């Protein structure tokens, strides 16, 4: 996708995107990322531009839009190529929308890599609960829409065990116009939860929604601007829900409160946690499974206590990918999570993703209620 170079506002860029001629056999998509930046280059310590540049991304200014050029190695030829993204940073929501026709694996190898490790930058993660919400909203807006394909996964570590062979990890890819019904059935029998869903909206097009916040126009049934407009609508629907979780996570805090006596000043750490509510009552074996999941996903839980009976697990956690330390306290219904130092939202968001993807897909987050 080669957008003519000129100064764009977001609106003028969207107009251009809606009518832009595309190379044959390419699919327009929007990959969305959560960031802690509200501007491209005005942040005090490190700006988004500097951060992306540090990861080898070349940046060209097109008014409010940035053209991002990222190197990757082509799977088939082994040669180095350049991936192009047209990115808009929304100053209010701090969402980075990357418009592109690059393949998903190319996105994963370029900007996706940054989301794995960079501080203050993460996928717009669409968890199973957000998929449920999207499904409802799509059907409200387009009553004749159908889910025609999905990929759904079950892990033996899931708190809610599969009815059928719960000890076996399962991934189901399903093609069929009865996707929604089939997903319900397969969820019930095999405990699988969606990671990718395709919706067919009659007379408009077919859309792929992936759990890493990438929405693709798979095929258009209308030659006008509508199919691409719906891409933006779908991103907007998903982002609204994900941003609620982000706001909750961002209520967490770590402060050192100075306490002055007559001759001394002590600083007492005050931890403000956030909470993950589990969708069902957990047992000791579940806490074992969770420890296993966390250690496989780049976390070390250390100096912890784990008690049987009514389950209790509390201790310290290191996030090796995002380089942060925090503390958790879990019982059979919820987990309280608090930063032990400055922890950017993306580290906690990654943690929330790991829990919902690998342990309790129906878990939800909330602010800690003062009793």
């Amino acid at each position, binding site marked *: 996708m080669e957008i003519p170079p000129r100064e764009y506002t977001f609106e003028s860029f969207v107009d251009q995107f809606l009518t832009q001629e595309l190379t044959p056999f390419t699919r327009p998509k929007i990959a969305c990322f959560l960031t802690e930046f509200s501007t491209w280059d005005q942040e005090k310590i490190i700006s988004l531009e500097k951060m992306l540049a540090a990861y080898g991304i070349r940046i060209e200014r097109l008014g409010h839009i940035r053209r991002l050029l990222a190197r990757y190695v082509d799977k088939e030829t082994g040669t180095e190529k350049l991936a192009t993204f047209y990115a808009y940073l929304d100053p209010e929501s701090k969402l980075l929308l990357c418009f592109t026709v690059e393949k998903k694996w190319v996105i994963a190898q370029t900007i996706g890599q940054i989301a794995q490790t960079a501080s203050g930058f993460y996928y717009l993660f669409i968890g199973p609960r957000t998929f449920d919400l999207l499904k409802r909203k799509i059907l409200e807006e387009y009553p004749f829409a159908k889910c025609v394909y999905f990929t759904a996964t079950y892990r033996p570590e899931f708190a809610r065990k599969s009815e059928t062979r719960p000890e076996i990890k399962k991934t189901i890819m399903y093609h069929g116009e009865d996707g929604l019904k089939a997903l319900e059935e397969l969820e019930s029998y095999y405990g699988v939860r969606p990671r990718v869903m395709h919706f067919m909206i009659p007379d408009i097009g077919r859309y792929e929604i992936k759990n890493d916040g990438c929405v693709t126009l798979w095929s258009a049934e209308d030659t006008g601007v509508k199919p691409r407009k719906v891409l933006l609508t779908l991103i907007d629907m998903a982002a609204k829900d994900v941003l609620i979780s982000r706001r909750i996570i961002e209520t967490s805090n770590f402060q*050192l*409160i100075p*306490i*002055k*006596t*007559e*001759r*001394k000043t*002590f*600083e*007492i*750490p*005050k*931890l403000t*946690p956030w909470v993950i509510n589990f969708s069902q009552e957990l047992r000791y074996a579940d806490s074992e499974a969770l420890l296993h999941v966390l*250690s496989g996903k*780049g976390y*070390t839980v*250390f*100096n*912890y*206590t784990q008690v049987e009976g*009514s389950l*209790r697990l*509390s*201790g*310290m956690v*290191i996030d*090796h990918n995002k*380089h*942060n*330390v925090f*503390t*958790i*306290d879990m*019982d059979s219904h919820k987990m*309280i*999570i*608090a930063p*032990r130092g400055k922890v950017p939202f993306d580290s906690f968001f990654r943690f929330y993703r790991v829990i919902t993807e690998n342990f309790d897909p129906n878990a939800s987050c909330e602010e*800690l*209620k*003062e*009793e």
Partner: protein
Amino acid sequence: MRKKTLTIIEETENDRKHLELVNFCANIFVPGSVVDEQTGYKLVVLEPLYTLNIKNFDFALLRIENASLILVECKHSVSDIKKLVEDIFKAVQETLKNQENLENVIGNAISQIEFVLCVPALNAPEIREQVVSRDYPICVWGFDLWKREIRLFADEKEIEKELLSGRVHKDKNLNKLLFKGIKSHKGFIRLAPIIPSSHMCTILVHVGEILSLEMKVPHEYLGFQYSDIYNVLQREMGSFTALTDEERATLCAKIIETGLRKGILHDLTEDVKELNRKVFQFSIRRPKAIARNTEKIYVERNAQKLAEKSVIDRFKKETGFTNLTAFQTDENKTK
């Protein structure tokens, strides 16, 4: 050997349970908490008597307005009730003798001190019975980790008598809250991940993890120095414990010494004599394995040491020799 390993594991587990309980209680009294707002009592320092070599009392609550101090000792489990109560009473007496030193630690004049023993709610009535029968001025709090609550165990109907005996608090609002039971909505999250008296294994694991985090993966080959450990201690517990700079330095040297002795750390600069110029490295350099490895080596080495000691003790007991040299000399004589 297996038995000894279990003993060491039990020791470290007990230390972590104690740390968990201290954090549970401390979370209730952080500045700005409901208790602080309603009574003015807030957490001011952890292990206030550590520097005075009085082992008991895990944290101090201070009401700055009237310079009233509450010292709390937490016991996550109780085996010998009589001994526990006697030990605490001795600590009470020691503390009262050291009031001036304690004032220096807190940096404030102290108008009154109240003492609290915080024990499992199940044991609290029996412990209170002991305290009452000996007429010791100790308030008994019972904690319930499942309900996530602490409660004052005292006779609400005889409040004046209890007040005179020092078994309820002088602050009516605090009594009211504690009689009702104070819930800890923050549970066991660790505002203090380590405290000065923490088990050396707990400290080594924590310091190791924080250092590995700071070194980050690409720099895993780099070593660290005395000053790095010192800074971690300063950051992790410097602002809310009574550790002086000298004590922090001593603890730092002890961490290094233990780490080297157990084979958890390597000295990369054996030719350098000054501790603060030496460079160290973890024997396992994969950041994700530091906690597990530190704990494993610590437990194994200590169990081995304990097992050796146990064999020698048995040998001494069975043979009557006080050391191996005496035994060898005797054997040569026989030959």
